[in-house]
């Protein structure tokens, strides 16, 4: 069995993904900033000029609080899902622990995420919402989100080895998800029956928590945090279990 240095390997794989993605782009990490800014402007235009009857203040940062987690989630999930099948050469030739491949892919999206969080925080300050001690919750909610993405990616990346259609299911799910999480609408517009279910979706819960922290300047409620922690941990444990069960026969299907 493989008895190596997990951290060193993880670091090398993350750096590899990051370098490959940015080395051949002239604008480099600038793309990480451009995409959410363009989307933010477009959504702000639609929901303040085309449909001006919403009650939301500070719409640009309101929508950015939704876009940054949503972008991270979809990019990390989609890249992670195909990571095992795309690294067949590695999986079939080197006895590394297989879990490390999708996890490294998710973590390499975190570099990208870090830049976007920087943009979000800068925008929050520009819009006159200062720094306060509630910001200490930010690493907690983001950490739980990353745990959740790792879990769901472990699941879909293992399934994708056996049935390659999984990647297209994931792609469609992401398109659908844009409407099913409160990116550009407020949770209080959602009927109460559905609103409770929303909080079990870690992505929706993260967006709600971010708005509470950054726009309202308050701590997220204990129920929301508990639901976020519960579903993230559950999904991660389930992901590890599914991956562990399925990895035995990766070799035969790649």
């Amino acid at each position, binding site marked *: *069995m*493989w*008895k*190596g*240095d997990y951290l*060193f*390997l993880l*670091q*090398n*794989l993350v*750096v*590899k993904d990051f*370098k*490959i993605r940015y*080395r*051949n782009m002239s604008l480099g990490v600038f793309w990480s900033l451009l995409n959410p800014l363009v989307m933010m402007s477009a959504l702000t235009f639609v929901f303040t000029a085309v449909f001006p009857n919403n009650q939301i203040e500070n719409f640009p940062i309101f929508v950015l609080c939704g876009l940054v987690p949503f972008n991270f989630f979809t990019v990390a999930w989609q890249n992670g899902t195909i990571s095992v099948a795309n690294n067949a*050469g*590695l*999986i*079939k*030739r*080197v*006895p*590394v622990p297989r879990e490390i491949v999708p996890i490294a892919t998710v973590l390499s999206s975190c570099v990208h995420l870090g830049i976007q969080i920087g943009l979000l925080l800068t925008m929050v300050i520009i819009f006159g919402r200062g720094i306060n001690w509630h910001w200490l919750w930010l690493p907690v909610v983001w950490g739980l989100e990353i745990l959740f993405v790792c879990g769901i990616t472990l699941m879909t990346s293992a399934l994708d080895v*056996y*049935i*390659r*259609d999984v990647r297209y299911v994931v792609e469609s799910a992401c398109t659908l998800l844009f409407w099913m999480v409160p990116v550009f609408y407020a949770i209080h517009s959602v009927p109460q029956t559905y609103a409770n279910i929303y909080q079990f979706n870690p992505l929706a819960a993260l967006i709600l928590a971010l708005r509470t922290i950054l726009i309202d300047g308050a701590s997220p409620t204990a129920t929301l945090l508990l639901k976020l922690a519960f579903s993230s941990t559950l999904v991660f444990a389930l992901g590890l279990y599914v991956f562990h069960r399925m990895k*035995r*026969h990766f*070799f*035969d*299907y*790649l």
Partner: protein
Amino acid sequence: MKVIELQNVTKTFHRSGGQRLLRHYLEEVLGKTDPQLFFALKDVSFSVADGESVAVIGANGAGKSTLLSLVTGLAPPSSGTVTVNGRAAALLDLGSGFHPDLTGRENILLNASLLGFSRRQAHDLYDSIVEFSELDDFIKEPLRTYSSGMMLRLAFSVAVNLDPQILIIDEVLAVGDQKFQAKCTEKIFEIRNQGRTILCVSHFSPTLRELCDRALWLDHGQLVMDGPIAEVGAAYEGRLSRSA
């Protein structure tokens, strides 16, 4: 001490292998097609003692590479047991962990970590790898600017300098130009003389005969002969010339 032991190992693949689509699963569930099995290895048993060097010979498709992937723990056997004691480094498909957009240096560190080395060990070994590869300044260039010979030299240098307990060689004994080939062969003999275990899959050649003491002959997934390399080699070549 036995470092590698296989007991009644069988490995089967589905004929449809590789790409499996949803359609295939539905057809299987609906009973439209019987999954056809292909026996890559059939009831193979042997063991390798510490310090032995063993060659695996046989025609294309005889199951040699499947055997190596079982020994390295990449694939599970369909039935039977595979036991391996000690860290095996595989020279399977040189450079499979390489990426063209990374520099030689980055690829060395990545590969070392893939093969299970710590940061410290990787940095300690780095200089000897670069020196062995004779790539000099090219080590700072992305791999896509390398010639195929240079890439093989780098891959070979990484694998042999990582000091494996069991060296597994697949089809490649030597790469590069003649001078470098001689250096590769010398390095492999040096590893053998240090008392390491070697499992080598290759075309039957004078170098192989010299390197290994023992040979396993695989034919259509079955172990037909196991013995001193001179005897097995003679029988194997006899069979080839008869069928030709």
